Structure formats: C-alpha cells, structure tokens
C-alpha cells in the first residue's frame, strides 16, 4: 500500500527518461564515421580535444567529395566492428586492414593506404623474427588488430600481451614490460621511434605482408548490404587521388608514398 504511489511515480519517471533518450531517424545527408583517436600519426587527440591525423583528414576529404556532412565518432579499436554493426556509425576510417577474416563480417571500400608491418624492439635485442629467438619473449600488440591475429597464430612460444590502445603498448615497451611489438611500420616510426621515448629502439626482423593476415591494404569499412554507399566511397577515394587532395594530405604527414604500389 505504501509502494503504490511511489511505484507509480517511478514508472512515470523511467518512461519519460526512455522516451527522451530516443532521437528521431538519422538524416540521410549526414553520415557518422567511426574513428579511433589513439594511433598517431593516423589519428590522435590534440590538446584542445579535437581529432587530427591522416585517417581524420582522409575521412573529411572523402565526405567532402561525396557532398555529405560527416560526424566523427570516437570508438576504442576493439569495439569498432561491433559498433558499426550496432549502427553506432555508418563507416569506419581507422586504419582497418582489408583481411579475409574481416570481409566475412563487413564490406570494405578500395584501399586508401598500404604499409608493411614490422617488429620493434630495443636496438640490439635478439628478437629478429626467427622462431628460436622469440621463444619466451613478451610481444605486445593492440587487441583485435591484424598484428594481434598474426602474432597469436604464428609466434609460437612467445607470450602475446594485448592492449586496448597502441599508446599503451609504447608505454610498456619503453618501460621494459614487453620485449617487442608487432605494428604497422609507419605508426611505429612516427608514433614511437621518432619520439624522444623511442630512443634506443629500432625495427627488427622482416616486413610482414602475408595477405591472409595483413590483407591488401587499409580500407574504409561499412556494413554488408550497402552497395550504393560503397560505390560512393570508392568514387570519392578515386577522385581525391586524382585531384591532388590525397597527395596534399599525405605530404602533411609523410615524406613518402603510403598508398603503396599495385
């Protein structure tokens, strides 16, 4: 008897809250883009809270070319594809490599860059990519990346330590908690080796390019069953490659060609 008026009030409050949380259907002339924000130089957060990086610039350029307004939505990398499927955003521009495993669950646009992957370790470390030398070593990778998949599958005998962000890998590599990391060569170079924290570290071992794990480059991911969107994105990528916008963005970050030869 005491509960009744209180319960009624509670139901009303909860109902109001749920309804107020629902926004109406998304405007078709805007797209939401999933980005990471923790993978320099491809995406990072500046001191004023804004997003910057190669991925960010490409996303904005592609949207401008498609003549849509884009909102960037930040998401941790290991939740990127589930978030896309839950319709948190419509496409992902977060250095996602086009791999057979991912193609099972999402579609990709044509690639927008392609760089090799390499091991980074302390200069002079015995880890050089040969099986004998990585036994017992601790190799750090970012969870859910192609590096994670490759290291887990191929580096038998090593301990694979998984981190949410590549930034955290750098912190632990510099602290000596892990012996090496497998990472995109450009991200490793710009994001670590060239920074003061990366002194005394170097690339080691070969370039990893096994297409089953490393795919044929990095593309923009979208949900399956959206051929028109894919066509528009592909056209936009082609257009910015042709009209010099791509080169301008590339030159802002790299002194070399990241698109990668055929």
């Amino acid at each position, binding site marked *: 008897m005491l509960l009744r008026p209180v319960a009624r009030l509670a139901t009303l409050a909860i109902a109001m809250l749920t309804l107020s949380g629902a926004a109406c259907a998304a405007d078709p002339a805007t797209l939401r883009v999933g980005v990471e924000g923790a993978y320099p130089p491809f995406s990072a957060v500046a001191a004023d809270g804004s997003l910057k990086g190669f991925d960010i610039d490409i996303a904005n350029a592609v949207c401008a070319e498609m003549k849509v307004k884009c909102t960037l939505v930040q998401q941790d990398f290991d*939740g990127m594809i*589930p978030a896309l499927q839950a319709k948190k955003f419509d496409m992902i521009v977060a250095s996602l490599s086009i791999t057979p495993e991912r193609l099972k669950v999402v579609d990709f646009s044509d690639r927008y860059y392609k760089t090799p992957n390499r091991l980074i370790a302390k200069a002079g470390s015995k880890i050089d990519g040969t099986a004998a030398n990585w036994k017992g070593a601790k190799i750090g990778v970012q*969870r859910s990346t192609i590096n*994670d998949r490759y290291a887990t599958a191929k580096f038998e005998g090593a301990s694979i330590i*998984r981190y949410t962000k590549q930034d955290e890998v750098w*912190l632990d590599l510099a*602290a000596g908690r892990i012996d090496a990391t497998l990472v995109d060569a450009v991200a490793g170079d710009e994001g670590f080796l060239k920074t003061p924290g990366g002194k005394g570290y170097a690339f080691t071992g070969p370039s990893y390019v096994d297409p089953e794990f490393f795919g044929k480059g990095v593309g923009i991911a979208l949900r399956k069953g959206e051929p028109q969107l894919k066509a528009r994105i592909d056209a936009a990528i082609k257009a910015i490659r042709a009209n010099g916008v791509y080169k301008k963005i590339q030159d802002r970050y790299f002194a070399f060609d990241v698109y990668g030869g055929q």
Partner: protein
Amino acid sequence: MNLAAIAESLPNYLHGLVTTVELLALSLGFGLAGAIPLAVARASNVRWLSAPVGAFTFVIRGTPMLVQLFLVYYGLAQFEAVRASVFWPWLSSAWFCAVLAFAVNTCAYTTEIIAGALRALPAGELEAARSLGMSRSQVVRRILLPSALRRSLPAYGNEAIMMLHGTSLASIVTLLDLTGAARELNSRFYLPFEAFITAALFYLALTFVLVALFRRAEHRWLAHLRLQR
C-alpha cells in the same frame, strides 16, 4: 546465440575465473587486515591518529580505482628512477600492480565502514564495559570491535561485491581475468552479446556464492538485529 564460439573460448573463461578469484581473495584479505587497525585509529578521538588515516581514506575514496591502477601501473613506470630501483621486479608485473591498487582501495573503504560502525555503537555498551573495569584495549578488543564488525556486515558485503566487480578493471592492464576473456572473445569473433553475457553469468555465479556466504554470516552474527514481524 553462437554457442560454438562460446564453447571454444571456455578454457579462457575458466582461466579468467581463477585469476578473478585470486585477485579478489588477495585484495580483500590484505585490505581487511589493514583496515581493522586503521579503523580503530580513524574512530578515535585522538587527532593525530584519526587525521592521517582520514587523509588516506579521503584520497583513495576520492579517486576512481581506474586512476589508481593506471598511476601504479603506467604512471610509476614512467620514471627512470623507479625502473632502476629494487622494487622494479614487483612493479613491472601487472599482477602485482593490480593487487596493490585493489588492496589499497578496499582497505580505505573498509576502514571507513568499520570506523562508522565503531562510532555508531550505542553508548550504553561502552559505558557498561567501562563500569566493569575493563582496560582500554580490552574494551576495544572484546566489546567495540566484535560489535562494530558485526554491524559492518551488510555494508562490508556490499564492499566485497564491489571489489569483485572492481577486479574486472584488471583486464584493462593486460591481465586475463573473466572480463579479459570476454574481450578476447568479442575481439576475435565480433560477438559482444555472447562474450559479455557469458562473463556476466560467471560473475553472477561468483556473486551468488559471496552473497550466500554473507547471508550466512549475517544470520549468525546479526540475529539480534533482525526485524520482529
């Protein structure tokens, strides 16, 4: 519901279960051990005893455990001096850092819970003890603490369960506990529902065990406070 993926990941979950239980037991154990003397100091009238403990609990309770964990794990490792020190073999281990952060955290909360119970004791019990001629330490040991510990049970039960949930943060610093196993499953197969519901079921089971234990304890030690119907 993709049961095949869950079945394939079961060994990971079981390993995670063991890790979670170990983290919980160690943190609660060390935390409680530290909290009892600290609580006595905290509830005392003597300024120089209660104030420092108060400052400790204030800082620890005032900051998220995630911040404390990151400070211990990533923050300390930033300094060359720490890495060269004799503590480094301990501090470089994620396991040690997690237990340290968790234990300190639960110690602070438990201290306040027990201190609160000490302060809320009916004055009559204290007067009776004094009038019987008991010494200071006898009063604390035989009257105050047992009574306070009993009254802390519901709140401490809460704290133990919160600590169980807190252990899930260990997955954020590379440890493979239950939540870590779920994140692995999610990241390998992109199945958030399966991954997190399985972890949730394991945590539920652990919580039921804890709740049952505390209910048994409350039944035994708080019988005198049960509501008469």
